[in-house]
C-alpha cells in the first residue's frame, strides 16, 4: 500500500476487529469460515452489552482454538457434551447468557442426543453449530452432516446412501421439538450470507434474552482444506454442495 492510500486525519475508522477479540492471530486454515462466525458472535455480544453475563460452552473441534482469544468466560466441554454442560450452567445461573459453540461433528455426530434433549426441554440457551460437513480437526472425516457425493477420508469415493447412509438436517430436527423457539440456518460464504448470519444470531440471542426457549443457529462454514479445494474456491463449493443440502432461512420462530 502506497503512502497516498493511508487513512487521512479526517477519516473515521468504521470497521475494526471485534472489541472482544483478544488476539487476531489464530491457527485456523486459510479460507476457513469459522473465524468469520466468531467475529459475528463477539460483535453481537459486545453490542448487546452481554460480556459480563456471558458464559460460552465450547465443544471440541478446530474452533477449540478460539476460547483463548475470546474476552468472555468460556467453559470448555468435551466432544458432543456442550448442551448438557450449558444446561447445568443456565439452570444454576438463569441470568447468565449461555451459548454453545460446536461443530457438526461435535453436535450432530457425537452429541446428537444431547442437543435434541436440550431442545426438547426448552433449555434457555443458544446452541450454535458451525457446519462444514466434515471433522476438520482430526483431518477430514465424514460426519452426520457430510453431504451425498462429498469426498472425505472415510468416504473416499464420495458419500453414498447405500454405504454411508444419509446426512442429517439438524436444524429441521431441532425445529420439530416443542422446546425450540428459534431455529435458523445461515452461512458465511458471501457478504450477503454473512449479513444473514449476523441477523439470525442477533435474533437467536434475543430469543434467549426473552426466555422463550432454546434458540439454535446453524452456520454453514467453509473448510477448503478438508473439501480438497483451494481456499478461494471454498465459497463456491459451499454454494454448490453444502447449501444445496441445507437451505438457508429461518426455520422456526415462536
Amino acid at each position, binding site marked *: 500500500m502506497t503512502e497516498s492510500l493511508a487513512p487521512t486525519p479526517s477519516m473515521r475508522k468504521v470497521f475494526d476487529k471485534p472489541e472482544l477479540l483478544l488476539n487476531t492471530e489464530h491457527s485456523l486454515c*486459510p479460507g476457513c469460515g469459522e473465524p468469520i462466525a466468531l467475529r459475528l458472535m463477539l460483535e453481537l455480544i459486545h453490542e448487546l452489552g452481554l460480556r459480563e453475563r456471558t458464559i460460552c460452552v465450547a465443544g471440541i473441534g478446530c474452533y477449540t482454538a478460539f476460547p483463548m482469544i475470546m474476552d468472555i468466560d468460556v467453559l470448555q466441554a468435551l466432544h458432543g457434551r456442550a448442551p448438557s454442560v450449558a444446561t447445568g450452567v443456565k439452570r444454576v445461573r438463569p441470568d447468565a447468557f449461555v451459548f454453545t459453540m460446536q461443530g457438526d461433528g461435535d453436535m450432530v455426530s457425537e452429541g446428537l442426543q444431547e442437543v435434541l434433549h436440550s431442545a426438547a426441554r426448552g433449555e434457555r440457551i443458544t446452541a450454535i453449530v458451525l457446519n462444514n460437513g466434515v471433522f476438520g480437526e482430526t483431518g477430514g472425516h465424514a460426519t452426520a452432516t457430510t453431504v451425498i457425493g462429498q469426498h472425505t477420508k472415510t468416504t473416499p469415493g464420495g458419500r453414498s446412501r447405500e454405504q454411508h447412509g444419509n446426512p442429517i438436517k439438524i436444524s429441521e430436527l431441532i425445529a420439530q421439538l416443542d422446546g425450540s423457539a428459534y431455529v435458523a440456518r445461515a452461512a458465511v460464504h458471501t457478504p450477503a450470507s454473512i449479513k444473514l448470519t449476523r441477523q439470525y444470531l442477533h435474533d437467536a440471542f434475543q430469543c434467549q434474552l426473552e426466555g422463550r426457549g432454546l434458540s439454535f443457529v446453524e452456520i454453514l462454514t467453509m473448510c477448503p482444506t478438508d473439501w480438497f479445494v483451494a481456499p478461494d474456491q471454498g465459497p463456491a463449493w459451499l454454494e454448490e454442495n453444502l447449501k444445496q443440502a441445507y437451505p438457508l432461512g429461518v426455520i422456526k420462530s415462536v
Partner: protein
Amino acid sequence: MRATVTIDIELCKGCALCVPVCPPRVLIMSEPVNRKGYRYPLLLEGCTGCELCAKVCPDYCFAVYREPLPARDHA
C-alpha cells in the same frame, strides 16, 4: 479519496476471499510473500469503504476508514 483500508499483511494467509468481493475491484494479490509465505492483498485507488473485504476476511486483516458524510453525518 473518500475511503481506504489498512491491511495487516502479516496476518494474511493468502486465501484471497477479499479479492472477488470488492465491488470496485481495488484489491489484488501481491507477488512477494509475507513472513508466513503467503501472498497478501494490495490496495489500489478507488476504495469506497464498503467493508466487504473486512467482513469476509477470516484473519481480521482489515480496518476500514471513511470520510464522514457531508452535512448529514451527526456522529
